[in-house]
């Protein structure tokens, strides 16, 4: 007599520590091997795009903080650029430098969380995540110093930033750079050289280059698959053309590559910050012509930045009113999930969690 086997459906999430929020994945497994994966979203849907149509351009900055709540500064940056493009607002030099410093600090903070929780998903419980929390804290302290907020910063404004850097900010930042460099070396030794970690992540969740491009992947997910595409270099916005930095890429497109790309990117961000701190000029931090709300003529604008998760874009349509007629978010976390099924099918259930962790999603941005 032969035993009959049949596929089993496993519900993963929505309330589960490895789902990075409220993400639900319905896995069909044959033994331990995943044969189908279907995601169920919407548990954190707040209707931000609808709400934003009722608010003014400046009020909407607050909403952008709450999309990807681990990288509020980058979200602000993308949104204010879209408004500036729509309304034709110039940005003073000093404000551009402040924005770049903040965006790169935010990238480090976001990648730290991504790497820490990813290591946790791979089974390294506790320690490394707490180290990363400790280091992210230093970035958050700097944010607090600059704008009074730690996570939902609401710092940037069309035409600049809401307030100038306090005098003690730059000295603190100068102390932070070498300290962070040392920590990154430590992490590389601690995690990237860890044999168990390598076994869990190498050759797992491979995303081929062609599929990555076709499925619209962006950010570290795309670059780990070997595509050298970074908007800071490929569609230079703000003042990124003034800085010297490299774009790390992977070769295989597995979970390990995605992790390593993030780790290397933190080093590159430190390089950018170092140069920005050296060159930052004095002067106004906001366009003096912009006071309170802005007004935009009828039209449309799309602006994007290379956020920590990938290409974050805002598409705004104006009908000439005080707020957007249409407020569309091109959210990298959401679009990076497109190829999740291809990435998970054929691997073990335990790998599915590692693969999801390696994409680095934030549900606030997926569900909006």
């Amino acid at each position: 007599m032969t035993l009959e086997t049949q596929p089993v459906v496993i519900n993963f999430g929505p309330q589960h520590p490895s789902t990075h929020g409220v993400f639900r994945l319905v896995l069909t497994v044959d033994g331990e091997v995943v044969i189908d994966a279907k995601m169920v979203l919407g548990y954190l849907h707040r209707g931000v795009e609808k709400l934003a149509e009722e608010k003014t351009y400046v009020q909407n900055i607050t909403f952008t903080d709450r999309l990807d709540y681990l990288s509020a500064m980058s979200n602000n940056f993308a949104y204010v650029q879209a408004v500036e493009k729509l309304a034709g607002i110039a940005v003073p030099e000093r404000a551009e430098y402040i924005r770049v410093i903040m965006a790169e600090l935010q990238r480090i903070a976001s990648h730290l969380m991504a790497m820490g929780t990813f290591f946790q998903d791979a089974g390294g419980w506790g320690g490394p995540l707490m180290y990363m929390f400790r280091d992210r804290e230093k970035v958050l302290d700097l944010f607090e110093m600059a704008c009074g907020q730690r996570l939902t910063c609401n710092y940037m404004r069309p035409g600049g930033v809401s307030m100038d850097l306090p005098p003690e900010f730059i000295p603190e930042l100068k102390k932070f750079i070498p300290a962070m460099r040392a920590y990154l070396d430590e992490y590389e030794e601690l995690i990237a050289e860890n044999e168990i970690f390598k076994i869990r992540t190498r050759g797992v969740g491979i995303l081929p280059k062609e599929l990555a491009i076709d499925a619209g992947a962006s950010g570290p997910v795309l670059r780990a698959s070997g595509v050298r595409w970074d908007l800071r270099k490929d569609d230079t916005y703000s003042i990124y053309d003034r800085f010297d930095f490299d774009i790390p890429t992977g070769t295989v497109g597995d979970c390990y590559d995605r992790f390593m790309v993030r780790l290397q990117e933190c080093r590159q961000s430190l390089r950018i910050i170092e140069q920005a701190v050296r060159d930052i000029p004095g002067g106004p931090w906001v366009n003096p012509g912009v006071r309170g709300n802005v007004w935009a003529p009828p039209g449309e604008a799309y602006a994007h930045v290379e956020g920590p998760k990938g290409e974050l874009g805002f598409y705004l349509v104006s009908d000439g009113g005080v707020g957007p007629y249409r407020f569309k978010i091109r959210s990298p976390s959401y679009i990076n999930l497109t190829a999740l099924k291809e990435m998970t099918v054929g691997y073990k259930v335990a790998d599915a969690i590692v693969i999801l962790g390696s994409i680095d999603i934030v549900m606030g941005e997926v569900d909006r």
Partner: protein
Amino acid sequence: MTRIVPLDTQTVADRLEGALPGSVEARTPNDIRVKLDRLVEVARFLKTTPGLDFDYLVSVTAVDYYPHFFELVYHLVSMQHHHSLVLKTRTPDRERVVVPSLVGVWRSAELQELEIYDLMGLVFAGHPELRRIFLWDEFRGHPLRKDYVEEIIPLPLPTEPAEPLG
């Protein structure tokens, strides 16, 4: 300093007219609008023609121009040539909302079309699995439409006072 250069829409419109006559509906310096029923052919042409090679679909958006029509906006980028194009198409009115799906051309459209179906109520013909992605299946209406009125569902009130605890 590298930038993604927006392609001259006149040149692209001419090429489209040459290969697919009658597909272009209108053109501005920023975007090209094509006929709704020719959208898939146009998309395939833009993706596969050497020199255009739009391999990366960045974003899909639907805009409700109440009370006239819905407009779909596609932001395309060619990673190879560093150029971009904004492709648009319109539904005939706000009643006929079946539009062709582009999942067969760019996979990246898959989740974005689901989002538009859910929130804007455009039906993508040819989408592999059209379902509500954010809202629950019983939800009525499509919130991003300009004429959407929020349905207030009264909470069931307790008919009897609750038993005191303990």
